[in-house]
């Protein structure tokens, strides 16, 4: 009926999504390989703490608040709204968590934290969606308002409570913990044997089955939930289309304002839940200003995770792990040097095989430097251990090949009726 003109365009970029089955297989291999590497480093360095049950649990708990903020970022930015206000929304969440948990218990507290986060989200949505205010300005303002409001609210409402003070509210009831008795014990025993690979895997299982807050499971569930909603549902498709090309979405009958509103509010909810984690899982008390910049770290994790839930989870985990590590054990930080060196040398080989000599040389040089540092020293000075998560992040970013792609219309103003 018609002739198709030969497409004279360039071949498509190599990253066309194909063969999901092969991908999950590769993932499995990757995870196993990583486990083997960590295990080797543990055995060689003798630092059993690098993946002990306690370390893994601490890492998970340190990861969750950051991850929730990052997921919040994914929601907002996938719909085209930059959310620098995560920190402010998280702070609001800490207060909501404390207030509602005090009066109604941890489950209502969860709702309270979500609610307060949502309030922050709504403010951001009104400013950026309805009034078209620059997203950064609104986010920065939100952070100031959040910090001020919570300091003020804490002083006004916590002062006379039991365990309360103008800056704190402690001794709150925490959400329940997961314990799977025989599995947990068996895994713990196995982990204590320090066998190659087996114990490392057992430690992971033990960490997940020995009195770990149920919130960790919920957060993990939220990662899958986010990925599922955004990539597998109609709702998610529409939401993402608002971040990629809202005008196009509009012409196909998508109510862009609505989706942006929903996305930003959900974003606030997630950040608020991050505050909840901090108050009730990372510890059991509210302290004014306890977010300490974790919202910003979440933002960084989201960018670093390429605006994707699992990417964000990976980035947040790396940060949470290194942070927990340096807080728990300075010796293990030293063992991390070996891990970094090993990883870099592996990447050197991979790069070389791809023919990328420039990066290979860079990786090799940095890798050897780390190896030398590991071999020539007994410990990382404890004063510097605190920098581990930040330096690690910079290092990974600097050495990783950056193929980050933010949603095309992220941060751009959108107004209805201007399509076409």
């Amino acid at each position: 009926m018609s002739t198709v003109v030969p497409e004279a365009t360039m071949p498509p970029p190599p990253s066309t999504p194909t063969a999901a089955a092969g991908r999950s297989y590769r993932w499995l291999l990757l995870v196993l390989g990583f486990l083997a590497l960590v295990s080797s480093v543990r055995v060689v360095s003798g630092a059993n703490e690098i993946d002990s049950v306690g370390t893994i649990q601490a890492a998970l708990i340190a990861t969750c608040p950051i991850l929730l903020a990052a997921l919040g970022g994914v929601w907002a930015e996938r719909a085209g709204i930059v959310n620098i206000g995560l920190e402010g929304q998280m702070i609001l969440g800490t207060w909501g968590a404390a207030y509602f948990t005090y009066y109604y218990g941890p489950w209502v507290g969860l709702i309270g934290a979500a609610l307060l986060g949502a309030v922050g989200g709504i403010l951001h949505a009104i400013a950026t969606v309805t009034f078209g205010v620059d997203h950064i300005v609104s986010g920065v303002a939100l952070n100031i308002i959040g910090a001020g409001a919570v300091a003020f609210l804490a002083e006004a409402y916590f002062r006379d409570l039991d365990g309360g003070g103008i800056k704190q509210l402690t001794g709150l009831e925490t959400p329940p913990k997961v314990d799977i008795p025989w599995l947990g014990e068996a895994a713990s025993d196995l982990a204590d044997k320090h066998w190659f690979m087996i114990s490392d895997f057992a430690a992971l299982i033990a960490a997940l089955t020995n009195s770990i807050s149920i919130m960790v499971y919920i957060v993990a569930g939220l990662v899958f939930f986010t990925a599922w909603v955004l990539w597998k549902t109609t709702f998610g498709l529409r939401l993402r289309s608002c971040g990629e090309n809202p005008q196009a979405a509009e012409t196909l009958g998508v109510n862009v304002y609505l989706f942006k509103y929903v996305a930003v509010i959900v974003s606030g909810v997630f950040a608020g839940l991050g505050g909840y984690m901090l108050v009730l899982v990372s510890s059991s008390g509210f302290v004014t200003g306890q977010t300490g910049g974790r919202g910003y770290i979440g933002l960084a994790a989201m960018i670093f995770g390429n605006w994707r839930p699992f990417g964000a989870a990976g980035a947040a985990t790396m940060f949470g792990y290194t942070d927990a590590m340096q807080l728990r054990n300075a010796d293990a930080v030293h063992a991390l040097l070996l891990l970094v060196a090993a990883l870099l040398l592996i990447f050197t080989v991979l790069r070389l095989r791809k023919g990328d000599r420039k990066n290979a040389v860079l990786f090799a040089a940095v890798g050897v430097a780390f190896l030398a540092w590991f071999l020539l020293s007994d410990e990382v000075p404890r004063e510097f251990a605190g920098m581990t998560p930040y330096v690690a992040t910079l290092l990974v970013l600097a050495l990783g090949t950056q193929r980050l792609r933010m949603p095309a219309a992220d941060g751009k103003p959108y107004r209805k009726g201007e399509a076409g």
Partner: protein
Amino acid sequence: GSDDDSDGGDDNNAGSGGNALDCSAADGDGPKVGIAYDVGGQGDKSFNDAAAVGVKKAVDDLGATCTEAEATDGEAESAREDRLRQLADGGHNPILAVGFLYSEAVNKVAPDYPDISFDVVDGFDPDDEANDNVAYLGFAEEQGSFLVGVAAATKSEAGNVGFVGGVNSDLIKKFEAGFTAGAKAVNPDIEIQVKYLQESDPKGFNDPAAGKATATGMYDQGADIVYHASGGSGAGVFQAAVEAGDGKWAIGVDSDQWQTASETEQAHILTSMLKRVDVAAFDAISAVDKGEPLVSYQVYDLKVDGVGYSTSGGFVDDITGDIDGYADQIKSGEITVPTAP
């Protein structure tokens, strides 16, 4: 009950109900006290509150009146000066400045108000000219820490204890030094894990999540008692002790933290190192009341009950003899407690 109090004096449980300082209700004809809090102000469950307790005592016992002012995070030096001047211009005497951050400001302001007595908790004179209307209320935190170190080493079954500091500053290092010395005095082989949450960022005093992660790490690595000097982050340390289970203890700081802890936490708070800011504050006020205001460095150490330890909960009742024995040796000078690790 009176057996809750070891070193005399009333408890530090400010902020709850009728015990709190309420300046608007004070209308006696005693000294007119101006109090400039550090960040947090009254109700912080820490040394601001302890200072308030001292003022409250002055209100009750001396008929003092008072005015409160508080600092904010990251404020300018000039804001502190201005705060002091406002209080001075308001005719207050003495003016209590809580926290060493006020040292410079007091040094600048005091010469302009020679008739007003200034007292800086934890303060120091930043220059060589002595100010004859300023008193620096210092505490021998290392001595109090020594005593809880003794308690920890005596009670520790694992021979392994921990110290969590909020910020790696000289002030907090005094706590570490005393604690270590005390523990070693009892058990020279004892293992002591030390961790500061931050190198200089004050958020180290505000991060219970970090406090908990750190203390949990110490328990996991064999410690059974962890002493903290980390302000608000200490809430996390207590929580860590609770989650670590029976036989794991935490030691509080500054005030008797057993009093303000929840029931589950109380079961794990072995003792607290007491820093009697309230004693010092009351001292300073009553000195003005008597017409002999304090000047220069005032050291509140064991001798004057300026520091000590608490016995609430009764967990150290069986060893108070030992501890007090060490206390006596310190008082008599037999033992000098180091101030730096």
